[in-house]
């Protein structure tokens, strides 16, 4: 019996390690290959922003997903990290310090960490609403200070820097965008591995315990205040790294980096991606960055779509995208997943029609009211609509109402198919 378990462990260990390191090796390979496949300037720009957003969202999830702290001011650490990075970059260039550019994100991290150490002790005394309110207050405080203290924050224009003026490394000037991409990719990988490793430490586990039940934690020997303080420090550190990378990417730091909008977007990304799983915020960061880049080009009311997506996720999929994906894991294990696929395909079409109807309605109203003189023609996926024409309004209404009525029937079929598949999974012991 004992021998058998020992043997199992032996067999399990290398396999588990292989799977563990395998994921990171694949991620590293993907990050290396990506700019070779998509080499245009605009895709590199997107990748750089996504990489930074991934670090930032993962750092936020140390608070929200791991420790149960809802912060409305996380961008403070990101922004201050960015400002410190810019100042140090300028100092390095002016005084010829021997600090190459690739180490600058670490400077940003130190900036984020330093501020977390400074304000964190008071902030993390309490969790819940108290913490959320204080984080909001600190966020506003720092954001408004940044406009007052002009010598440090550069007022509204911000502080600029030149990343190529720093000592070079391996002959890289970091002028070309691709070199910046690899610098960001390197820090994405290192930060993600470090933050994942953090979840596997005694502190990481106790953070989860504090999230679930801070009261009980006190009776197993831990001070939840100290646990939250540690978590806050780590979150500030990695947010600072993201801020440092942003400073390198744009060669500027300004007050927008530490404002409420930035804090809102990171919350949004982490929540949409799913805070219950480590990889959730990664998905959220990718999606939100693409939405930000894509939607702002297409529509003037892109923030409205953000709001609708956010409300939809909160109401119908509180686990986020990661939660939706991981719901299927027991079905896949039990082999009952093919039961749900046809119902998904069936539901896809009317749901899409419904969504198109809503988009058309929003755009019609937006063009009808806001864009005076710019023409009232809406271009929806290549099809032109006139916002002032009654037929457009009728089509929009038809799509919304008709789409919804039919979609609702197919949603029921999804629920039924899901029940059947889940029952099988339960019978086979893959679902509690």
């Amino acid at each position, binding site marked *: 019996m004992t021998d058998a378990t020992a043997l199992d462990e032996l067999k399990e260990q290398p396999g588990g390690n292989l799977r563990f390191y395998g994921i990171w090796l694949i991620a590293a390979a993907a990050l290396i290959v990506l700019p070779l496949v998509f080499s245009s300037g605009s895709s590199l720009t997107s990748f750089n922003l996504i990489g930074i957003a991934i670090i930032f969202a993962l750092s936020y999830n140390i608070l929200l997903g791991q420790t149960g702290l809802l912060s409305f001011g996380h961008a403070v650490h990101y922004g201050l990290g960015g400002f410190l990075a810019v100042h140090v970059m300028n100092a390095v260039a002016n005084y010829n310090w021997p600090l190459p550019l690739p180490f600058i994100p670490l400077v940003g991290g130190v900036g984020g960490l330093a501020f977390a150490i400074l304000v964190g002790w008071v902030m993390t005394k309490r969790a819940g609403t108290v913490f959320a309110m204080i984080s909001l207050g600190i966020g506003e405080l720092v954001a408004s200070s940044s406009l007052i203290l002009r010598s440090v924050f550069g007022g509204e224009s911000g502080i600029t820097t030149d990343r190529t003026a720093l000592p070079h490394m391996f002959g890289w000037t970091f002028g070309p965008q691709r070199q910046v991409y690899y610098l960001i990719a390197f820090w994405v990988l290192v930060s993600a591995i470090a933050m994942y490793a*953090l979840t*596997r430490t005694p502190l990481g586990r*106790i953070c*989860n*315990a504090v999230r679930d039940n801070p009261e*009980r*934690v*006190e009776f*197993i020997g831990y001070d939840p205040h*100290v646990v939250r303080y540690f978590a806050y420090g780590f979150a500030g550190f990695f947010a600072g790294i993201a801020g440092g990378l942003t400073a390198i990417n744009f060669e500027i730091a300004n007050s927008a980096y530490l404002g409420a909008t930035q804090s809102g977007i990171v919350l949004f990304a982490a929540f949409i991606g799913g805070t219950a799983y480590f990889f959730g915020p990664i998905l959220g960061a990718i999606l939100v960055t693409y939405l930000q880049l894509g939607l702002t080009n297409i529509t003037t009311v892109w923030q409205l779509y953000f709001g609708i997506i956010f409300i939809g996720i909160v109401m119908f999929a509180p686990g986020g995208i990661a939660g939706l994906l991981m719901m299927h894991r027991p079905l896949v294990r039990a082999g009952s997943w093919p039961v749900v696929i046809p119902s998904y395909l069936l539901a896809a079409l009317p749901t899409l029609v419904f969504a198109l109807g809503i988009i058309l309605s929003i755009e019609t109203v937006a063009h009808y009211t806001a864009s005076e003189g710019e023409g009232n023609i809406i271009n929806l996926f290549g099809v032109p609509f006139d916002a002032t024409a009654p037929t457009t309004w009728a089509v929009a209404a038809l799509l919304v109402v008709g789409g919804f009525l039919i979609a609702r029937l197919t949603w029921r079929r999804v629920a039924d198919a899901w029940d059947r598949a889940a029952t099988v999974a339960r019978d086979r012991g893959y679902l509690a």
Partner: protein
Amino acid sequence: MSAAIEIKDVQKRFGNVSIIRDLNLSVAKGERHAIIGPNGAGKSTTFNLISGYIKPSAGEIRLNGDAISGLRPFEINRRGLSRSFQVTNVFARMTVLENVRCAVLWATGHGYAFWKNVDHLPEVKRRTDRILDDIHLGHRRDVPAGLLTYAEQRELEIGITIAGGASVIMLDEPTAGMSLAETERAVALIRRLTEGRTLVIVEHDMSVVFGLADRISVLVYGQIIASGTPEEIRANRQVKEAYLGEEAH
């Protein structure tokens, strides 16, 4: 040798309401001590006072001779006292294994370590596995605690309480809401797991109390009215009147 727990003239008032009035109690080391009393007598408040969950308004509480009144719960826990809760109080989203493991971490000296892999700590793994076996939840180790049955959650509650290896264990109605068979199993479990330690237990089920306890204290309206062996308590007239409701007035 000093007592495991020594309570001297402890009072607890909420505003003008006195919940605990001049509480005096002594629990010897290695003793299994039950606290009984009618609803609202202050049994849970007594537990909360000893474990640091609430602070006494007056008086002194000593653990193994050291004053602990006014200390925070984690400080008292680190000095070797661990308690369970009447209402199940586990880490619902974490697995059974992680629940127990978290309770082992401080006692094994890993504190707030963020440089160690929690899966590669042999002593933690050994102790966690043993406790999972002890509470018969080894086969449920990967299930989130929130999905356990009620009786299983109660067993996990006991597991978390004893995991740190505290010398004084306090259990607040560990068998509340359990079926007869489950109660028997739980009592056997408690008896085995608290071997060689001091146990203080609040319990309503008299068969559990008289079967398990070396000594019993009766708490009525915030005061201990009697303390003694099960035989002494059974024979005590005052206890019969107050506790069994055979009052004269």
